[in-house]
Structures are given as structure tokens and as C-alpha cells.
């Protein structure tokens, strides 16, 4: 690259993935042996910085003995008419890539966990000062991100100053994350799809949005973005969300289109925030599962590590079997723990106001993200042992679901031990059932029924 003729080492994409071995390195900046290290991008006003200025505070590369490590901080200040606070993260995310373009330079990780190494070879070629690094970064940033009009770089190795800035940087990252956590599905035009689990569930596709993590919990919308960028034709790809069909249930034209394609026509529609109708399908390796409990018209939530029995007498494996396999099963919904922290969690079904039971362990882990008034009303395995106790608990704690019971005409979760259905007069000629003499036909029609029975026994009438 002619752009870097005056730099003592080569700069280019071919050096990405280069690793500097311990015995080949001249210096390590940050890394696991240093407590204080960071890289930080800050948006500044046009008059606040001097374009192209590289400042070095503390020792420069050549001042350090061979094979040593040092506390390290890099502050990049950028300015421009279109440069906003929101872009700081975007600019910062490029640092990893750009640093790795430098021959004999390794950059790992991000933010306050960075580890960088400069090779002896590149040092011997003359890459002996942060000035060179500053020059490379400045040119790459300005040529790749046109909105940056001014850029100023500060390299810090002075231990006390690194430490001081380190705590400031932590606060800045924290604030940025809080903002990202608050990002909503309405804020973006693109979701991401993940088909990694199709080897187990061929019709399953995870739709990853800012407010709905992948079922496995491993892939956020940001991960989707990063992964799809590296390998756009890979198992994680963009889904332009398209027109909104229903904002409440979370149905989008673009999502339906991709689902139809990727499920080979098996699944036609998906509504992201509900467990009924057209729920998001479940792979086999979701972190947790929401399951509908008809007796109380509410949901239980259980996670993979819960070894006991849920309030309705099932264990995770059974619930998982009922849910998995890329199907749409009403009332059973595979999900990630992170999704439980989302405002969109089962939003169309009533969200947390509809959740009545969950294991203690998971409740403790996510309770800070729940509406505070709901937390004490959700029962755990240490509060109730069965549905009977659950009903009493919900009434006693005044769980919002109780109000729902009275609103729904005909829905009264009263204690029903056993009901005897009067003998039906069977109309003739329906379809034959083994064990029932011919001529004894019957019809069963259930409309809007909510029935849960341990067993259904159909007995032929002895009187012919």
C-alpha cells in the first residue's frame, strides 16, 4: 500500500490473523499480566482536537527492554460534522481490525481486556515508536470512515495515568452498554438469522433481534452483526425485517419470507413475542423454556440446569421434548435467559404479568430485570410443590394473573378433582374405533375448551 510508504513495516489485510509468539515478541501492551489497559474512542468538538496529532505519555516502544509488558492506554479522539457520541463504539470496534493490518503486530480482544504484541522482526525493521502506530491508525480511520474529519491519538504507558484513565473508561463503557441494552427492535431495520442448529432441527431458524437473543443465549444482535459481516453467506446472516405486520406480536414481512425459505416451506409465519398461534420455533439447545399452565392461565419458566420437577410435575427434559425440533407448539417456547431480561419477553401474551412459577436459581439471576412488583408474586420450587399450592400462593400474593381469572368469563380455576360426564347418546355411523362394536358411532366436538385430563377413557355402553 503506497499510503504507508513512510511506515517501516508493511500494512495490509494479509496480516490479519498473525500471532506473535512469546519468544518472537519485542513488547506486550496490556495483556493478562497487566491489570490496567484500555482502548477508548471519544467524540469531540471540531475545536477541541488537533487533526493528526499523536501524543505519547510515558515510555515509547524502544524505551522498554526486550520481552517486557506494560500498562497501556490508547485514546482516540475524533471530530466531524456527523460525528456523534453514538458512533464512538462503532469507531472503536474498528481498532481490532486496523491494528491487525500492521505487519508483526497482534491485537486481541477489546476495551479493557486488550492484549497487543509487537514482533522483534518489525521492531528491527524500524517500528520502534507509537508514532508509527498512530500514523497507520490515523490514515486507516480517515480513509475508511469518511465522517471522521479530525483525529487525534494519545498513547499512554505512564502507569498512574493509565490507571486513572482506566476507571474513567470503565464508566464510559458501562454507560454505552446501558444504552445498548435499551435498544429496541424498532430501532433497527435488520435482524439476523441463525441456522447453526438446523443439523438437529432442520426447520428451525433463530431470529435474532436487539430484544430477542438466539435461543442458545450465545448470539446477540451485535454478535449477529459481527458474524454476518465476516461470513455473509454463513450460518448467521442478515434478515431485512421489512414491513411490520403486527407490532404487538412481532410479525414482519421480511422475517416470514426468510423463515419460509429456510424452513423449506414448513413454517410460514413467525410472531416473535408470543407462544401462541405462530410462535418462534425452538431448536433443541435452548437455555430455558416457557410453558403454559392452563390451570392458572399463566406461564412457568424453567431452565436447563434445573434438575427437579416443575410445578406441574414435569422436568426440563420432558418439557424440552415437547418443545424442540423446529415446530410451532402452542404454549411451549424455547428461549434464552437473556431474552428473559428483555422488555419484549412474551410481550404479546402479557409478559412477566403472566409468569407464575420459575426455579429459585433463575429467579435470583434475573430478578433485577423484572418489574419489581411482580418479583415477590412469582412462586419457586421452594414456595409451592403443586398446582393446588400454586393457586393459593397466587391469590395470597395477589399476582396480577388473579385479576385475569375474573375477567375471563367461564374461567374459574376452582378445585376440580374428577368430573363425570354424563353418558352420551352416540349417533350412528361415525368412524370405527377398535373395541367399539360397529353401529356405535359417536362424535366429539370440543370448542373453546380448556381441558387437562390425566387419562381419557372411552367405554362402550354395555347395553346394546
Amino acid at each position, binding site marked *: 500500500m503506497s499510503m504507508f510508504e513512510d511506515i517501516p513495516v508493511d500494512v495490509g489485510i494479509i496480516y490479519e490473523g498473525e500471532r506473535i509468539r512469546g*519468544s518472537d515478541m519485542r513488547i506486550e501492551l496490556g495483556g493478562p499480566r497487566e491489570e490496567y489497559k484500555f482502548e477508548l474512542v471519544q467524540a469531540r468538538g471540531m475545536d477541541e482536537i488537533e487533526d493528526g496529532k499523536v501524543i505519547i505519555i510515558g515510555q515509547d516502544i524502544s524505551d522498554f527492554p526486550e520481552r517486557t509488558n506494560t500498562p497501556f492506554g490508547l485514546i482516540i479522539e475524533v471530530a466531524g460534522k456527523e460525528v456523534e457520541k453514538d458512533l464512538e463504539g462503532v469507531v472503536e470496534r474498528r481498532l481490532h481490525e486496523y491494528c491487525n493490518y500492521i505487519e508483526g503486530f497482534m491485537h486481541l480482544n477489546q476495551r479493557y481486556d486488550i492484549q497487543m504484541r509487537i514482533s522483534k522482526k518489525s521492531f528491527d525493521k524500524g517500528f520502534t515508536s507509537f508514532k508509527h502506530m498512530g500514523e497507520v491508525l490515523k490514515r486507516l480511520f480517515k480513509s475508511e470512515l469518511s465522517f471522521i474529519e479530525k483525529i487525534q491519538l494519545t498513547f499512554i504507558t505512564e502507569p498512574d495515568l493509565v490507571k486513572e484513565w482506566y476507571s474513567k473508561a470503565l464508566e464510559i463503557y458501562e454507560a454505552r452498554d446501558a444504552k445498548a441494552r435499551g435498544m429496541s427492535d424498532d430501532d433497527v431495520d435488520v435482524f439476523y438469522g441463525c441456522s447453526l442448529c438446523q443439523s438437529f432441527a432442520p426447520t428451525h431458524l433463530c431470529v435474532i433481534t436487539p430484544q430477542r437473543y438466539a435461543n442458545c443465549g450465545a448470539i446477540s444482535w451485535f454478535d449477529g452483526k459481527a458474524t454476518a459481516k465476516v461470513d455473509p453467506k454463513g450460518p448467521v446472516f442478515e434478515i431485512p425485517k421489512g414491513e411490520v405486520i403486527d407490532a404487538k406480536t412481532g410479525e414482519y414481512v421480511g422475517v416470514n419470507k426468510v423463515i419460509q425459505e429456510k424452513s423449506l416451506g414448513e413454517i410460514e409465519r413467525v410472531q416473535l413475542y408470543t407462544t401462541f398461534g405462530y410462535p418462534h420455533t425452538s431448536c433443541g439447545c435452548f437455555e430455558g423454556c416457557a410453558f403454559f399452565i392452563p390451570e392458572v392461565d399463566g406461564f412457568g419458566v424453567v431452565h436447563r440446569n434445573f434438575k427437579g420437577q416443575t410445578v406441574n410435575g414435569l422436568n426440563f427434559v420432558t418439557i424440552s421434548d415437547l418443545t424442540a425440533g423446529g415446530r410451532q407448539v402452542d404454549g411451549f417456547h424455547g428461549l434464552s435467559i437473556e431474552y428473559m431480561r428483555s422488555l419484549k419477553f412474551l410481550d404479546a401474551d402479557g409478559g412477566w404479568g403472566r409468569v407464575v412459577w420459575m426455579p429459585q436459581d433463575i429467579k435470583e439471576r434475573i430478578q433485577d430485570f423484572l418489574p419489581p412488583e411482580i418479583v415477590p408474586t412469582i412462586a419457586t420450587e421452594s414456595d409451592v410443590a403443586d398446582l393446588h399450592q400454586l393457586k393459593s400462593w397466587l391469590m395470597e400474593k395477589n399476582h396480577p394473573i388473579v385479576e385475569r381469572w375474573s375477567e375471563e368469563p367461564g374461567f374459574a380455576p376452582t378445585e376440580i378433582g374428577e368430573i363425570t360426564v354424563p353418558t352420551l347418546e352416540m349417533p350412528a355411523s361415525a368412524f370405527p374405533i377398535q373395541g367399539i362394536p360397529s353401529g356405535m358411532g359417536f362424535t366429539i366436538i370440543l370448542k373453546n375448551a380448556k381441558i387437562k385430563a390425566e387419562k381419557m377413557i372411552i367405554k362402550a355402553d354395555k347395553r346394546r
Partner: protein
Amino acid sequence: MAEKLVISISGKGGTGKTTVTALLLKWLIQNTEKISLVVDADPATNLPDVLGVELQRTVGQSSKELKDKIEAGTLSPTLSKKEVLEANVFQTLVEEDRFDLLAMGRSEGEGCYCFVNNVLTRILDTLTRNYEVAFLDMEAGLEHLSRRTDRDVDSMIIVTDPSRMGFETARRIKELVDEVHIDVKHIYLVGNRFTPEMEELLQKSADDIGLEYGGIIPLDENVMTFNLVGKPLLEIPDDSPAYEAIGKLAKKLGLTG
């Protein structure tokens, strides 16, 4: 850039995969300038001891740690998990003068590792490309084949001891390689703890299974003693019969120069 060689070592449990790996590494260090990556892909993680290096943590532990952080929700939502894992994996490397060691360890914990493993494959590919030679000491099971862990391997060594089961395992490995279409340039059958009289039989078996004949490594008292008292095999005397035998195999593999 110099030509790169990826060599995997597999076979039935207890046949001496780790011993062969260690001896090949010793030969490479003493006879060439090459730098190598040694991957202990066996969950039992014996290789660090056999090489006399101190292991801090395994890749399995790093993956588990990342997975735990994901579950606990303590990771920043905007950070790239790939970059976090990449750095964590790099930090598990034991960095020696002439080789680096990476121990895979057990894949721990429950739940879905689809994404983590997918990312991990790419991270390991990138890392391996940085070395002139990579030795992969595989686990005894055959699962690594169906997972296609061996897919970028140039030469595969199947180690057998003088036993029916050793040969049968070799046969099954060969069948699996064909079945899952792993594109390996050479597959060698190497007999460990063989006497010279058994050589002919081994050659015949290699032919029969459809493998290239890799040679025999004799039963060696030094190897036994070193393994027994836990002394690193890299320090075994150069005139040990097993070490003398490994040179031939190293040349066949193209490790010279």
C-alpha cells in the same frame, strides 16, 4: 511463507499416541529450525506432563467460562464474543521456546455449544496457520473424525500396538475418513512397541486396510521408565531405540529441512 504441515496422531487408547507426538516433537526441535504448535485434543490432557510443561487452563475451560458469562448476563451486550474467546484461547497457550502447546480439555457444561464451537473452529484455524508444523494429538474415540476436526490435516498417523483391537481401530478410522470425506494426503500406520519380527505383519495389515506403512517403534525401556516416573520425554537420550526409530517416520512426513 514456508510450507505448513498439519499432522494428526490417532489410534486406539493406550497405543502410544502421546509418546509418538512427543518423540516427533523432540526430533523436530533437534533436527530443524521449525516452530510448532502442539495441540492436545485428548480430554485426558496428558501431553503437557509428557512434554514437561505447565498448563494453566484448557480451551474447554475458556469456552465454559464464556458460556457462564453469557448465562449470567455479565458480558457487555456490544462486545464481540468471538474476540473474547479468541483472546481467551490465545491466553491458554503454553509458550515454550520452540513450540507452543494448546490443550483442548473436556468440553464442559451443558447446553448449546453450537455457536461457541463454530467460533472456536475458526479461531483454531487462524492460530494453526501461524506455525510451520502443527501436531494434533487426538482423543482415543473416533468422534473427532465425524466432527471433521481432522479436515485440514496433511498427514494422519494411526498408532497401533501389537493387538487385534489396535488394527481393528485403525481399520475403522480409515473407513470413517473415507465415509466423511476427509481429504488427507497421507495416512500412515505406525506400530508402537513392536519387535522387528512383527514388522512384516504390520506391513501386510497396512496394505490390507489401505494405509501407507509408517514403520515400527520398538519397545523402549527409556520410554517406559520416563513415563513411569513422569520425566518429560523431550529429555529422553538420543540413543533410545524409540527415538532412533522416530527419525524415519519424521522424514516420511516431510518434517526435514
